[in-house]
């Protein structure tokens, strides 16, 4: 697992958040095995960042849940070898999260690490994301990765 902090890269955000302030100051990236027992760390990290911004307690709780739902959505089809990468950007207007999980394809003979039915709650997950964040998107599998993003403004 790695946690890195470096200046944001506007070119990576432009397509998804074309209307945000391009003078973003910070980016934190979290890379870890795509194992659900580790996602508490992602929730905690994003909540910690949000608490240093102008988000109130309810918004921070919303973000904790949204990060979890984003991870679930991106991890569909993940294997024991999959890696989850979460990038968190922020500016004066809000907070933006990109998530990707690779590889997502089950190889021959490899067991899906999630229990049967683990992703049957897709409709609930979509409802939750739609209610908690200002914008979100989940991609189909592209180049071996499933990606998603959320944006929550103050």
């Amino acid at each position: 697992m790695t946690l890195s902090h470096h200046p944001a890269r506007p070119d990576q955000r432009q397509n998804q958040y074309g209307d945000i302030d391009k003078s973003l100051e910070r980016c934190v990236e979290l890379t870890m095995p795509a194992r659900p027992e580790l996602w508490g760390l992602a929730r905690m990290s994003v909540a910690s960042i949000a608490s240093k911004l102008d988000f109130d307690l309810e918004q921070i709780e919303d973000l904790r849940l949204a990060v979890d739902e984003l991870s679930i959505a991106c991890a569909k089809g993940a294997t024991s070898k999959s890696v989850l990468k979460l990038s968190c950007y922020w500016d004066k207007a809000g907070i933006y999260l990109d998530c990707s999980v690779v590889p997502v394809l089950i190889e021959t003979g490899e067991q899906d690490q999630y229990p049967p039915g683990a992703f049957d709650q897709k409709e609930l997950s979509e409802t939750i994301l739609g209610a908690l964040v200002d914008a979100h998107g989940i991609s189909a599998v592209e180049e071996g990765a499933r990606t998603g993003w959320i944006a929550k403004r103050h």
Partner: protein
Amino acid sequence: MHEELQVFFDRSEAMPVVRVVGEIDLATAPQLSARLSEIPAEARTVIIDMSEVTFLDSTGLSVLVATWKRFSEADERGSFRLVVNRPAVQRVLDVTGLAKVFGVFATLEQAKAG
């Protein structure tokens, strides 16, 4: 890093009470599902005390929905009650509309009184 989930049963009273402590997410929802399946379907009323649940996501909700369906199918007059007093848990029930489906109470005493 990850809070363990604990599930306690109290069968000493007429209606079973299941006390859940910790975070309910993709990692722990199967454990909750397994424990809730131990409740006999013929129980007329079941109370899930979630006052010590600190996190609930869509996978946890789907476990609750499955349990609620099991009781509804067994007895249309059966009652499925949740005790919820944490805003974060109440919020996810509200935004999904499930707060109107389940009986949600602020305290265990209120849930028992129905």
